[in-house]
């Protein structure tokens, strides 16, 4: 399948992948500091394991950025 992650196309040798595996594959070291948007929907953190990413999906990892001072 081909998935767009943060605007870049990526190929995977599988037909579907749970969100948590995609996070791990993209070396997101602190998933608690990321919000995941899948095709425009923000995915509930408790549902990373049972939400599947499939061919032509668009995924954004949106990072918490707390600084300002």
């Amino acid at each position, binding site marked *: 399948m081909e998935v767009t992650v*943060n*605007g870049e196309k990526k190929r995977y040798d599988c037909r579907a992948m749970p969100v948590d595996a995609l996070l791990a594959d993209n070396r997101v070291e*602190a998933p*608690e*500091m990321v*919000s995941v*948007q899948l095709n*425009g*929907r*923000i995915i*509930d*953190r408790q549902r990373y394991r049972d939400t599947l990413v499939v061919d032509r999906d668009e995924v*954004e990892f*949106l*990072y*918490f*950025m*707390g*600084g*300002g*001072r």
Partner: protein
Amino acid sequence: MIDFSEEQLQRYSRHILLADVGVEGQARLAEARVLVVGAGGLGAPVCLYLAAAGVGTIGIVDADCVEISNLQRQICHFTHNIGDAKADSAREKMLAINPEITVNVHYEYLRADNVLGIIGGYDFVVEGTDNFPAKFLVNDACIMAKVPFCHGGILRFRGQAMTVIPGESACYRCVFREPPPPDAVPSCSEAGVLGAIAGMLGSIQAAETLKFITGAGRLLTDALLTFDAKDMEFRKIPLSCQEDCPVCGEAPEIDSLIDYEQGGCALAGA
């Protein structure tokens, strides 16, 4: 409408020349009331640009004093201001740039029990705080009070911004549901930040404020602008209102303001 003097027409001539601003837009700026939350890395350039732009009334919320470690990026504070209240230090520079404006200072930290009273008197809020409890509090309060605002965040070489029009566009909580666990959060004081990043992001927030007031252009709504200055990559990620958003969704669970616990690390002058 405000009748500008010859001197004022000269002061604001580069705005007035802009077809999207003009004398009318400049008059709107003079009548506008903007609150800047945090007079730090983001708030400093915001305060200076809004003052220079002739925003008639600018409020500053900050309870901290200037420390030497702030001076690398908080450009409205000078070496002689170390120990002064940040709000006073910012106000001094703003009035030096433009004595015609009014600057209100609020020497407070925003809390659930004071935030509505403070933001209520303003047309637009610039959120330049350094911690998640404050970012969520500003979002929720602005949604409840229907006050538009611009969120900003910076860390290391990166920044992000989004403008929120309550009832119309995605809010901060549509994207970031609740604060991350305090122990997972690096602050500027731990992770560091390139000084100029604060200026980049603060300038974006100031531009959004001026666009909102004058009606020029299209706001940074329903999108998260992110940049990484290491390779100067900017991305504008489309967002949309989430119907399950806990504060602006169809059945909001959050109906009162929340004082979240702040992690031990992120409080000290990020």
